[in-house]
């Protein structure tokens, strides 16, 4: 099997989607002539031309809104936000306009656009370029939100998002772009939105996670004395309650592993749902492993502490399994 860079999975998904569907267009800053700041759109301009692969001015509100209008009128715009934070200046068009298009037209109209963005911490980009921000979108009825975790899920989720009848936000952990792994492309491969995957079977506890934290969970599970099941949630909204509930029914313990601030991470919703649905089968309180409620620090040692590591995750899960009590996070003890 061929080894590819994960960013090539983005490129391939976009290229295949544009070949299959002439209504797919792309907009973003430096995506065309320069091939993208992260080289995930290299060659698309040459392959599909400047009417479909469009370099924009630094005007996120304009091109985000143009995507809404084009989507309503039959196009399939894929918008790149270079860093997800940049959508802050264009948020109205996505969360207030696109998200309500179907509702306000009583089903007559929809804005089936895709926003894809690099996201997440770990590379020293500082607090204004290192967040996931999925909670901005998860909190908005009418939007779907998914997070990629490797080459296969990148391809499968992107293709599904572009074919979806509603607006979808795809967050691509930037730290994964330059990872290499074995993957054979299959242009018919899709991952349905709203479907999670059990990526490792186990009996003692279920870790529910997504994005770059999937590999952290897997590494923790490999090294741990506990027998850990790992679920890649993939779509954060709507999320796969059934797969998670069944798994927790088997293991009796739920751990969410989130690259999100404790106060707003998606795990709060997962925990509350499972606590209600699976109350009788829980052997331990549901446990969340999150980021602290603080901005992402620049210094490398601090950023490494800030993000859950495999060792920390293993330690937390082992404590949960052995005591059936929720262990404290590192920052309360550090404060």
């Amino acid at each position, binding site marked *: 099997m061929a080894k590819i860079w994960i960013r090539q999975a983005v490129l391939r998904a976009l290229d295949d989607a544009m070949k299959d569907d002439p209504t797919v267009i792309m907009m973003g*800053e*430096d995506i065309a*002539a*320069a091939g993208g*700041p992260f080289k995930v759109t290299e060659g698309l301009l040459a392959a599909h031309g400047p009417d479909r692969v469009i*370099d*924009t*001015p*630094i*005007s*996120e*509100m304009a091109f985000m809104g143009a995507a809404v209008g084009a989507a309503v009128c039959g196009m399939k715009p894929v918008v790149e936000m270079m860093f997800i*934070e*940049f959508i*802050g*200046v264009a948020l109205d068009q996505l969360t207030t306009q696109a998200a309500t298009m179907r509702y306000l037209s009583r089903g007559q109209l929809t804005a089936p656009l895709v926003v894809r963005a690099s996201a997440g911490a770990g*590379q*020293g*980009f*500082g*607090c*204004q*370029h290192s967040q996931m921000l999925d909670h901005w979108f998860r909190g908005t009825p009418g939007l779907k939100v998914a997070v990629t975790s490797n080459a296969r899920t990148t391809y499968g989720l992107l293709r599904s998002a572009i074919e979806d009848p509603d607006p979808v936000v795809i967050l691509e952990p930037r730290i994964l772009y330059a990872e290499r792994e074995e993957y054979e492309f299959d242009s018919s491969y899709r991952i349905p939105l709203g479907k999670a995957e059990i990526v490792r079977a186990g009996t003692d506890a279920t870790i529910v996670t997504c994005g770059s934290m999937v590999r952290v969970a897997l590494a923790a599970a490999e090294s741990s004395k506990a027998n850990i099941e790992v679920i890649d949630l993939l779509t954060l909204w709507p999320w796969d309650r059934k797969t998670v509930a069944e798994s927790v029914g088997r293991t009796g313990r739920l751990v969410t592993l989130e690259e999100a601030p404790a106060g707003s991470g998606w795990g709060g919703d997962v925990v509350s749902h499972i606590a209600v649905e699976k109350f009788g089968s829980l052997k331990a309180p549901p446990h969340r492993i999150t980021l*602290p*409620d*603080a*901005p992402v*620090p*620049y*210094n*490398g*040692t*601090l950023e490494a*502490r*800030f993000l859950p590591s495999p060792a920390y995750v293993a330690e937390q899960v082992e404590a949960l399994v052995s005591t059936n009590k929720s262990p404290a996070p590192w*920052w309360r003890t*550090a*404060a």
Partner: protein
Amino acid sequence: MTISNSNSPIARREALQDRLEQLTRMVEIRAVEERIQKLFAEGHVRGSTHLANGQEAVSVGIARSIDPDDIVTCTYRGHGHALALGVTPAAVLGEICGRVIGCAGGLGGSMHLVEPSVGLLPTAAIIGAGLPIACGAAMAARARGNDRIAVSIFGDGSANIGAFHESLNFAAIRKLPVVFVCENNLYGEYTRIQLSTPVEDIAVRAGSYNMPSDIVDGQDSDKVAEAMAKAVARARRGEGPTLVEMKTYRYSGHSRSDPATYRPAGELDAWLKRDPIDILANRLVGENVLAEGGLDKLKADVRDAVEAATAEVLESPGPALDEIMSHVGAYSAGGDQRWNFWSK
């Protein structure tokens, strides 16, 4: 030289009234940017960094034209502005290397320099973010009954974001004491201005807001200072904002990973012929402030000083782990230690 070595941002700022110090500071900015490039290669810098070599005259021309208690907002391309405003080389290099000695204690990084004692708010990594903030600082100055002004520095590419237009309109209608400074270095990231912007001069956009504007040779720090002085005086007199466009050029690519292959052949060489450091140095020789051939010695001295600052930075530790949780809010560790602008 002794003045550039001062550890006090205010003293460094005030020193800029001296002709030789103006040149020294430009040489220092160049040397610091070159050192950052090297520190990157040596593995001391994370993420990205945006150098401004070639744009030194803009930084020094602005800094010498405003007071330390005027407020400045600027962008990730802010190392030169921070140094000109008075932040020390150790505080800039230290921040970029993530050390305690850095101006944000190593928590911010290359894109986030800050020094309230000379009016510098944290430099923003989001395009357009600084313009509305400058409007608000100007409102505060007026509300508090002083004649302080705000300066917002941003790039040509930033003139296409909503915040630019909203801020110009807002400042104009309220006659706010703001100077909007556009550093037109011809590129926004990898895109030449002609491909993103239908006007050649950003300054013409002031017309839509009934605001005066100026187009300035940004490679000549005296011309920058002259235009700034006019706009600053106007703002202080309560006559409202001005948009000042500095025509300039960044010698390096957009960020550290950019070899700038999109630039036409010969363009960089043409700009190098009008190097801002040479322009001022030649003038200072004429003014008998700098000896003939004195620039080389100055450059060597400054390089030594920057090397010493670098050594100091590399000996400085990283921030303690506890810093992750401090200063998130006044409720966090560190408490409420806010800077009180204009209290003295």
